[in-house]
């Protein structure tokens, strides 16, 4: 009898403890939930709300809901041109980065050396260099009296106009975003079991055929991850387009900033929502086909 009572007592004690223990993880995530709710989700919610507000003269806004801000962004030729430019710039940057990063990552992944750590460090280092520093470096290199034009001058060539236009902006963006493409591609190619390639070769496939039918398909998740990162970071980029592209190359983030400065917050909010929508649609597609958790693997 008493043994049974002790047993019951022990069980109920364990249960109480279990209940208490079950609450621990929720207590641990309270700070992050508060932070994200108040300083991330709430601000985004206000941006969404204000994007439907009406701007009144003098720079304030009133709670008269309208679609005017979206209509303005999506119908006026000037703004359509800016939206189209932003998307094209992101697409071109992504394609160039992919074309440069693929053979490079392939080479690094297949390289057999004991200095691999050092070589990878040389790839990661620019990734860690401040964007303002890298943009400034390109201004020095590409400027009208810049280093590149100096060198071209020695051969009697140039000078070329390489900044304050699309070329300069593209060079800077590709340079800044390359590591985002290289790192997932490298991880993905290095993760391919080389015996699969050997098996294909043994079975009579040529080098090219082995690459196209074995290596390339297996590296696609890495390429998709890199492309996704480069695209979404480029459409949100302000600093490099502003400094290397200049006033003739306005992109959505520059337009948003300008509209906030002009006190047209509802229009800036609508443009922000459009940018967010593009990113969310891409993230959704990426999550469906590849899995969002892959984005976390690039540190």
């Amino acid at each position, binding site marked *: 009898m008493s043994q049974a009572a002790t047993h019951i007592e022990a069980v109920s004690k364990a249960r109480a403890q279990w209940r208490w*223990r079950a609450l*621990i*993880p929720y207590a*641990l*995530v309270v*700070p*992050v939930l508060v*932070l*994200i709710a108040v*300083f*991330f989700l709430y*601000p*985004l919610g*206000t*941006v969404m709300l*204000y994007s439907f507000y009406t701007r009144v003269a003098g720079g304030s806004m009133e709670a008269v809901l309208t679609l005017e801000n979206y209509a303005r962004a999506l119908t006026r030729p000037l703004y359509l041109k800016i939206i189209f430019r932003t998307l094209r710039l992101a697409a071109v940057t992504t394609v160039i980065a992919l074309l*440069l990063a693929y*053979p*490079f990552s392939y080479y690094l992944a297949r390289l057999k050396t004991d200095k691999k*750590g050092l070589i990878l*460090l040389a*790839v*990661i*280092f*620019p990734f*860690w*260099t*401040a*964007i*303002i*520093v*890298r943009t*400034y*470096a390109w*201004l*020095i*290199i590409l*400027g009208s009296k*810049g*280093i590149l034009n*100096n060198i071209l001058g020695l051969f009697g060539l140039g000078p070329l106009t390489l900044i304050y236009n699309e070329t300069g902006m593209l060079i800077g963006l590709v*340079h800044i975003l390359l590591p985002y493409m290289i790192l997932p591609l490298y991880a993905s190619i290095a993760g391919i079991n080389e015996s699969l390639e050997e098996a294909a070769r043994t079975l009579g496939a040529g*080098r090219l055929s082995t690459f196209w039918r074995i290596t390339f398909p297996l590296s696609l998740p890495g390429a998709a991850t890199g492309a996704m990162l480069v695209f*979404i970071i480029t459409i*949100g980029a*302000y*600093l490099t387009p*502003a*400094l290397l592209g200049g006033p003739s190359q306005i992109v959505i*983030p520059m337009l*948003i*900033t300008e509209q906030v400065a002009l006190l047209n917050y509802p229009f800036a909010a609508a443009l922000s929502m459009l*940018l*967010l929508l593009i990113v969310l649609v891409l*993230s959704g597609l990426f999550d469906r086909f590849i899995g*969002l*958790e892959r*984005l*976390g693997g690039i*540190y």
Partner: protein
Amino acid sequence: MVSTGSVALMARRPRWRVNLLALFAIAMFVFLLAPSAIVTILSFSSSRHLEFPPPGFSLEWYQKIMSDANLTHSMGVSLRIAVAATVLAVIIGTLTALALTRYTLRGGTVLRLIILAPFIVPYVVQAVGLFRVFLVLGLRGTVLSIIIGHTVIAIPYVVLVVSAGLLAVPKSLEEAARVLGANGFTATVRITLPLIKASIAASAVFAFIASWDEFIMAFFLAGAGTETLPLRMFMLLRDFIDPRLTAISTFLIVINLAAVLFFSWLTMRTRGAESVVEEE
């Protein structure tokens, strides 16, 4: 049947291909590293113009930036913000990582997604929202507003790095401590945290750099006297290509280089620690 000729051809062709790839890889390394190298070399130039190669060497630009009160002030602002954001993000992020890896959490999948969101949503969109929120709160232009903005964007990095560290440490060590009489809190503090201290340090480096290099949030949130270093550099560059910035850039490059070396050393250590744990 394969003739000896084609075997010889097959043996030769890959070598040629590899060399072409190697040449391309070298060109890529030059492309990736040359900008930082050029800025660093030019920061020691004695010329008043940005000519390359420099005609001679001097520390003139360094003296000039050290005597510019605005620039030294911005360095202090950036440093204070980055340290505060790092401390906040590491504490909050480590607690989150513990919850996500050491416990079963209802809604864990959704939580993971929400925590990753500040990494995916363009910073300019977040900045537009925070700008208005802090304006209403009367906090726009304060160091605190930038610290909070930077903490939000640093959190995903901390959670990812610390979670990876936690997943590498077997739960059994903590369970052993509990069997031997330690309660959950003691087991976590005395066993788990020391085992992942390298991951926590690595996440701190990541958070620090995320804040230290950040531009657009500071652009929207800073006011007179709270301009961060990247923001100050941008303001100077809008007028003309200021050669003094070579010296500041070199200073930033050195800090980032130290950070990436420290980070790599820490991650190598964690990987070393894993294998030790496995052997035991």
